[in-house]
């Protein structure tokens, strides 16, 4: 990162190896920026990060000074955030007259019909093609298959969970994905991975909004100290991390911020730090980065990550952002509540630590002061060994929860020593099922206990009717949850329906 903030009203982006200048209104997303430059492969299908037709690859830092080609939804990404960055679109995957292996397989196997979603699929697929761990997953295909939905070539189908196709029924796309080999020795994009990703240049982008004429500002400071200083002196600043929520506000609801503070690339807020009594997750780490770097060390989060939105979203969304929005249906809070997580809030006044259970105060309301940033999430150790993440939704991939329930339970000598249950989607805030926890603790870990607590759990929260689910169904999900958890822990055959009744 450069040491000083430079004022500039033009952002420079390397797109398919060519420098392009961005000088539009600050709320412009990367998709419109690219299309405005005649690069129309990426398309708008939904403008809210659900369909992936706009997917592109960006160069993001990876372990030990290397680069990871990372697929993201360009419709959510502010164009200004690309300042100093490197982008590859479907157009850029073509090398002269030679199409990329991903493009070749998609074309000849019938992976495209109408073709509108195809450049987005190609981008997601190319990012997975270049995933450094894929070769190892291919070598250990059985394990990878069990862990993910990996093909024999190590291709993880979850990488396409954020891309929708209305024509093909997906089978030919899956076949194309599983037919891919490994990048060849002279593959320039593969070679690019061995060099560092572009540093996040400090950016202060200011430009008039064409509709209102007002000046909008997008700032990405170089240090956390600068960021909290800005927040302190300009409390009406809009803090944006991965922009997967903010981008939706801009695109769908027409939200315009005069003053955006981008915090997703601040070194101080990134990484995973381990100590004897906790694991600290950088708030600006993306969910994909956490998934990779934790590598199952926090099993409950390991169960959550594949169910959190889609890979395209997880590649941009940060854990701090998911908490910062204060949404009652964010997917991390139920799991983090079960883990007794604490948040580190930082301002010019210093750091303070807040238990996540005390963080939410009302619908999209939290104890975070306007001048504070969430800089880290701490997971205390030791972890309770029995965990589960139950996400109830219409669709298995890439959906918003109707209800989400996280469990972390410690059983000692057959007795429940500690129970933590986090709930989402059943009240104006995520909450802990405290009455149920109290009922469980100290009792034997048995079906009898489960049944005794069932109605207590069903009564936690105040679920509502909406287009995702009825209140009655949400209550029923709470009611069946403990029994499901118990069945999961024992394996499904251990509980018979006779016993349950």
């Amino acid at each position, binding site marked *: 990162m450069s040491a000083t903030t430079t004022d500039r009203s033009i952002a420079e982006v390397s797109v398919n190896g060519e420098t392009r200048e961005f000088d539009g209104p600050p709320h412009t997303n990367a998709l419109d920026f690219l299309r405005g430059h005649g690069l129309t492969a990426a398309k708008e299908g939904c403008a809210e990060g659900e369909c992936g037709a706009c997917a592109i690859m960006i160069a993001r830092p990876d372990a030990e000074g290397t680069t990871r080609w990372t697929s993201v939804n360009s419709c959510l990404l502010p164009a200004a955030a690309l300042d100093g960055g490197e982008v590859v679109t479907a*157009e850029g995957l073509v090398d002269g007259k030679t199409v990329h292996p991903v493009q070749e397989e998609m074309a000849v196997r019938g992976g495209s019909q109408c073709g509108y979603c195809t450049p987005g699929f190609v981008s997601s697929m190319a990012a997975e093609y270049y995933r450094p761990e894929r070769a190892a997953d291919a070598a250990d295909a059985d394990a990878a298959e069990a862990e993910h939905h990996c093909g024999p070539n190590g291709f993880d189908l979850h990488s396409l969970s954020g891309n929708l196709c209305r024509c*093909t029924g997906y089978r030919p796309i899956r076949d194309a994905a599983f037919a891919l080999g490994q990048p060849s020795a002279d593959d320039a994009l593969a070679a690019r991975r061995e060099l560092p990703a572009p540093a996040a240049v400090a950016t202060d982008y200011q430009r008039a909004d064409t509709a209102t004429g007002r000046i909008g500002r997008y700032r990405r400071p170089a240090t956390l100290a600068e960021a909290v200083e800005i927040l302190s002196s300009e409390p009406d600043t809009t803090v944006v991390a991965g922009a997967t929520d903010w981008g939706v506000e801009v695109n769908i609801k027409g939200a315009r911020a005069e003053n955006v503070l981008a915090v997703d690339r601040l070194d101080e807020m990134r990484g995973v730090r381990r100590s004897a009594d906790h694991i600290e997750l950088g708030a600006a780490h993306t969910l994909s980065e956490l998934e990779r770097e934790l590598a199952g060390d926090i099993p409950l989060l390991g169960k959550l990550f594949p169910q959190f939105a889609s890979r395209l979203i997880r590649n941009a969304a940060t854990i701090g952002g998911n908490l910062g929005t204060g949404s009652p249906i964010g997917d991390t809070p139920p799991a983090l509540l079960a883990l007794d997580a604490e948040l580190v809030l930082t301002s010019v006044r210093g750091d303070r630590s807040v238990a996540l259970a005390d963080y939410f105060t009302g619908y999209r309301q939290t104890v975070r002061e306007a001048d504070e940033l969430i800089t880290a999430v701490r997971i205390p150790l030791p972890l309770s060994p029995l965990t589960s993440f139950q996400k109830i939704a219409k669709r298995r991939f890439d959906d918003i929860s109707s209800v989400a329930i996280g469990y972390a339970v410690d059983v000692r000598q057959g007795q429940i020593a500690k129970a933590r249950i986090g709930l989402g989607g059943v009240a104006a805030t995520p909450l802990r099922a405290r009455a149920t926890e109290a009922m469980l603790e100290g009792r034997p870990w048995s079906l009898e206990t489960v049944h005794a607590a069932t109605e207590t759990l069903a009564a936690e929260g105040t679920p509502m009717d909406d287009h995702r689910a009825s209140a009655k169904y949400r209550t029923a999900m709470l009611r069946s949850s403990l029994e499901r958890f118990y069945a999961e822990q024992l394996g499904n055959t251990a509980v018979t329906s006779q016993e349950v009744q």
Partner: protein
Amino acid sequence: MSQLSQRPADPVVGERHHHESAFGHVTGSALYTDDLVGRLTGVLHAYPVQSTTAHARLLSLDVEPAYAMPGVVRVITAADIPGVNDQGVKHDEPMLPTDEIMFFGQPLAWVLADDLDAAREGAAAVTAEVDELPSLVTVRDAIAAESYHGQPLHIDKGEVDAAFADAAHVFEGEFEFAGQEHFYLETQACLAHVDENGQIFVQSSTQHPTETQDIISHVLGIPAHEVTVQCLRMGGGFGGKEMQPHGYAALAALGATLTGRPVRLRLNRTLDITMTGKRHGFHSSWKIGFTDDGKILALDASLTADGGWSLDLSEPVLTRAMCHIDNAYWVPNIRVTGRIAKCNKTSQTAFRGFGGPQGMLVLEDILGRVAPQLGLSARELRRRNFYAQGQDTPYYQPVRHPERIEACWDQLIDESELEARELEIEAFNAGSDHIKRGLAITPVKFGISFNLTAFNQGGALVLVYKDGSVLVTHGGTEMGQGLHQKMLQVAATTLGVPLSTVRLAPTRTDKVPNTSATAASSGSDLNGGAVKNACDQILDRLRQVAAGILGAPAHEVDISRGIVSALSSPKTVTWEELINTAYFQRIQLSASGFYRTEGLHWNLSQMRGEPFKYFAYGAAVSEVEVNRFDGSYTLRRVDIVHDVGDSLSPLIDLGQIEGGFVQGAGWLTLEDLRWDESDRPSRGRLATQAASTYKIPSFSEAPEVFNVSLLDKAHEEGAVYGSKAVGEPPLMLAFSVREALREAVRAFGGPGRGVELASPATPEAVFWAIEDVRAEESRAAASVTEGQRVPS
């Protein structure tokens, strides 16, 4: 074999090729309508002012505040329309309302501005003064208020009442099921300008360029020859671009004439979902009688289509629904009454299957529900009722090739190892309390042709240039279904040239006039017939030329893969040499081709005739696994045998079958249109109006194992090169998913129990169905059933 259906030796049709634009798709070089904006300068962007009430009297619009926004150039209201203010063909669909607002989200005016943001800000500044009126939001509301479009339609065949008296088993019920949003990935888009010749030129993502042209023409009050519509390609259509694009194209064209600048109109996803029509939801009440051995004796059913605010295509949709209620089953005595509910919602329209799926769903649901009460498996009940040779449909059309239903069925049972898997599932379920599996097999019989006979015509223009290269234009549009690829293969086959010799030009109304919509699965039949006809005309002329060169009789001339030969001649020449010679002999090297489907007739008032050229058949087996804790499920395996005739292009057909199936499964299980039925001010608003709330199938819903076979020995005499239409029929193979869910739910209770399942069978709906079964099983039924939700 007919002349139309007979293939020459070594034909290009039948070869496996990828989509003609596949490499354009994957590289991004294939352009869509909205990709063209950057090619014009001074483009204005359009954004609508939408109604925020479901039904109201429009008293006045104040558009002045919009002009205060920087960048706003023009606000268009109904008063600006010089011609007919109607975006449909029934004269009940004002493009912009003058006095009555008919649905929540209806465009009241459009703002044109230098950029989209300014247009949106301008639209937000326009205010409407309205008087709220009572609104009808659900089909039940409309039925209760007797609010209908047009008159009822009736099918009445045989002696229904007498048959019920004879029936050993009679069941009655009601079934209401939801519609479906098209969710083409490319939303409605058009780009209009006045060209260098003073013509209106409109690029439009439309399945029906001719009708788009017609509507622009009547809205502007100018003759059709002043309007040209081009459709490069669509990012999906599925019926949603058959009628819906017209009003937007007309608005853009009007804007271009009013301002002298190009106008781009592209709906964002929420505008598209809230403004455009969808698949009709239906309400049905029914009574069915069976013989003692499970043969259907009589069916008496009402079908009420949820038509929305205007007629649109609701009449033909309803007609097709009524003509498909029989699906693959012989119903000797039948009475069906059809109505179109008029209510304050988007105007429901064509969607892949066009009413057929809705009609068939009613009977498939009945069979799935009552089989246990007849003491039969659903599989056996279905099979016993298949059409046999000599039987005819409820509208008196003989069913040709009924043996193909059974052929598909038997081939499928064999290929899918169905009987062994039924036993495996039984064993699995016996040992599993929370997770149950279910398997079901269902058939499809789908009539091919537009019900309305006049639409069954197609046109083409084939140009052979002096260098031998061939350019084909036809009346059909490309929306991903691979029509252009099939047309290339037809042209190459007929002319006898390599595929690479032929190129396809985009669909334009100034190349081929008066075309029918690319709809009703008829694209290949109609346009293929026309392309073949044009090529045959050229070929007939070329044979004479070749005969001269080769010194052989014309009837002996064979042109294949670019080589011209004759049996009695030792000489051969190339296609290019032949064309060069023909040119110097002043032989016409172009032709316009035409095709009309022979033998069709239809009497709508009597609902009687032979509206279909042939039937497409198929069958599918689906296996699901259901979790009782939340009702969630996975689609473990799907096997399909489908009848595409002799395939023109097998990879393309395979794609249609698989894609149609998954889209049908989405309709039946996942996709959930939720309209606000409350009395709040948001009454009539669609709550699921974005990709985040309206969920179409993703990778997680695709079958884990997906096997598709094409039916063997399937030549179709009545269509080009022996092929059959394939666009719509496979959608209905997805009934097998719904029925498999029913079987899995049933497994949570005792045998012999009927299971009612809402549609869509979302995880929540499946959960409540399981709860019902379990509650009955434990004889503690109290209060659980009230959770059963039947969506509108």
